[in-house]
């Protein structure tokens, strides 16, 4: 059962990478996470949002949509979506060290997401965009009020 949820959208600007992970981690703090758990969530969100900015939109820009839900069993589900160019081959994109931009990008964004979250699902349609749904169950019980 969903105990709390939020959604937001913001422009595809690199300055919003820090903003978006701060918002999600503040929301997740209702689950009384450990420092390691909150860092895992922040890092995974940062990777997903950076993918939207660098790969989905590039110089074109657009909006990034984030929604998150907290569940009674101490699980958080985070969905990060763009309406950018889409991923041609999702399996290939999720392979460690694969990158289409080269340079200083390590190609480890999905590897970080999969390592730091319990579940990562990617749906993408060329020309329509990509959505990443990540789930993590936190160790500590909590109480979400309101």
């Amino acid at each position: 059962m969903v105990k709390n949820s939020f959604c937001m959208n913001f422009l595809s600007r690199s300055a919003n990478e820090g903003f978006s992970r701060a918002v999600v981690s503040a929301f997740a703090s209702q689950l009384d996470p450990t420092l390691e758990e909150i860092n895992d969530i922040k890092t995974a969100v940062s990777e997903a949002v950076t993918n939207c900015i660098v790969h989905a939109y590039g110089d074109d820009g657009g909006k990034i949509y984030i929604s998150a839900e907290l569940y009674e069993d101490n699980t958080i589900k985070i969905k990060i979506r763009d309406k950018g160019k889409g991923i041609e081959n999702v399996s290939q994109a999720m392979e460690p060290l694969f990158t289409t931009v080269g340079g200083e990008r390590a190609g480890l964004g999905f590897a970080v997401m999969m390592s730091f979250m319990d579940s990562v699902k990617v749906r993408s349609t060329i020309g329509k965009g990509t959505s990443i749904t990540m789930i993590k169950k936190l160790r500590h019980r909590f109480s979400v009020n309101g």
Partner: protein
Amino acid sequence: MAVKINVTGEVVTAYLTGELDHHTAKEMREAVDNAVELNMPSLLVLDFSGISFMDSSGIGLVMGRYRNLQKTGAALHISGASPTIYKVLKLAGIEKLAKLEGDKQNG
């Protein structure tokens, strides 16, 4: 300034501060690269003790500096990596490219 540079003999130490992500990495790597180009060190130390957050952009920064240093034969060390930072770095096997000083990763 997100990077403070210290030069001692042939050692350049870059003290990185703040959050290291795709947004901030460009400024950091330019500061480090300028210091390396100017001083031609035999050892570059990237100090992460002032980094409060890092995603895979930090891996890119380390790997990029490692590639650049290979051209001159200089070594690369990493210091001050907290367990959180180390958790990200080890995903790329960074310890095979750079010596980890201080060994905070288990602390």
